[in-house]
């Protein structure tokens, strides 16, 4: 406990680091993943812009990148990280790596959320002459909003979880704090406090997600 208190500043910093990494990743991965997921969905055979080649290529790319262990992924994209962030260590670099890795996960979640949309409504939009881009923005996303929001809540938790690995490259954050100051030092109170903080953070996120999903689903 004393140990925790003496490191309270690190803990506070860790909270900010986590918030920063999670926020950046949610935004970036949210957008890239959405685009990628929609691309997967609409090019799926039989769908709006069905295109077997594009679908297969995207599918394979996502499948190649997603299963790469995060430790390796982080290292592998170092050259890119240097170009974009200017450094390969610290919260920014971690946020970058997290964003990229999460994008591919998000794309799958998005694809899965859209797959349940009734084809009839897409047809109705096509019938009034709406183009694919407009259909995506004004029909696909709103119609799939319920599952999409739940999917993003899911990814939110996933990103919080992944951010625990940010410590690998000095990204800090709560997960790293729990491990470095907690479990590796067999200091369980630190682990409890930190995990509890993570849980509170996640609960807030998930409640927001549930609330929004309920609004979107109207039940």
């Amino acid at each position, binding site marked *: 406990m*004393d*140990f925790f208190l*003496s*490191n309270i*500043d*690190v803990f506070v910093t860790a909270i900010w680091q986590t918030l920063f990494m999670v926020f950046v990743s949610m935004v970036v991965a949210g957008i890239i993943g959405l685009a990628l997921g929609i691309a997967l969905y609409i090019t799926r055979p039989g769908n709006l812009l069905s295109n077997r080649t594009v679908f297969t290529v995207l599918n394979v790319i996502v499948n190649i990148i997603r299963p790469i262990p995060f*430790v390796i992924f982080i*290292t592998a994209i*170092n*050259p890119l*990280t*240097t170009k974009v962030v200017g*450094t*390969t*260590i*610290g919260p920014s*670099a971690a946020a970058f790596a997290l964003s990229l890795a999460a994008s591919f996960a998000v794309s799958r979640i998005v694809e899965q959320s859209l797959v349940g949309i009734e084809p009839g409504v897409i047809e109705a939009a096509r019938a009034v002459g709406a183009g694919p881009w407009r259909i995506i923005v004004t029909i696909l996303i709103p119609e799939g909003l319920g599952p999409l929001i739940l999917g993003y809540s899911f990814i939110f938790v996933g990103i919080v979880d992944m951010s625990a690995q940010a*410590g*690998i*490259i*000095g990204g800090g954050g709560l997960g*790293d704090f729990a*491990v*470095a*100051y907690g*479990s*590796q*030092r*067999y*200091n369980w109170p630190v682990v409890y406090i930190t995990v509890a903080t993570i849980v509170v953070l996640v609960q807030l996120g998930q409640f927001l997600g549930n609330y929004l999903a309920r609004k979107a689903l109207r039940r």
Partner: protein
Amino acid sequence: NRNNSSSSSAGATTNAPQTVSIGVADAASPYWKTYQDLAKSKYNVTIKLVNFTDYSQPNPALSQGQTDLNEFQHIQYLANYNVTSHDDLQPIGATAVYPLPLYSTKYKAASSIPDGSAVAIPNDAVNEARGLLVLQSAKLITLKDGGNAFSTVSDIETHKVDVTALDASQTAGALQAGSVAAAIVNQNYATQAKLAKTDAIFKDDPSSASAAPYVNVFVAQKKDITNPLYLKLAALYHTASVEKGVETQNNGTAVFRTTSAADLQKELATVESQAKAAASK
């Protein structure tokens, strides 16, 4: 595994085939192969290596008898574990002390590192405090109360450079990627990352007495400290062929130690009492 453990402790006298499991963190190092072959041919013992990527795991596993021995830590870490987890694991053989060097590819001396540069250190409990102490000796930082074996980055009092703690395997990479001006790199990673020996611009002195807590050890449960087979296996580490492998692994920087088990245990007791004092402070 439990069965193995009891049978191996009982049957140390015979040459009947046995299995001994050792928890390690670097099973991929080739010297372990040499070691395994040797144990087989000399004692007819099959060494089963259990590789842990997280340091928090091997000690509890040993304590619960899921492994028979482990070899991944120095006395300092073991003491910390025993104190915080109210356990009583004991060292039964020394292996080596590895200097913990500060590497830089740009600067030739610690003193020439510009103010405000980033410096990477390992972030695991085994290496972090020691890395900080190295930086302090290199006059790049000062630690609260002069620092101790439990210091963390939050104990930095004044600093000439910005210290970032990374996964031990990443500090070399961060240095090579240009993200930091200098980095504390564990010798095995330095070798694998092909950092030139000459790039080590500062290191603690492995042969000094102050390095005693950093002697790496074979650890067993307290009841096994006299197990002859385990003692033989610990000693087996100092076979020439194994030592040669370790040296290759560490680019010749390892300083082998053959401190007796009793001395190691005494050293442990000392560090443990220090740790208790530090914890109650």
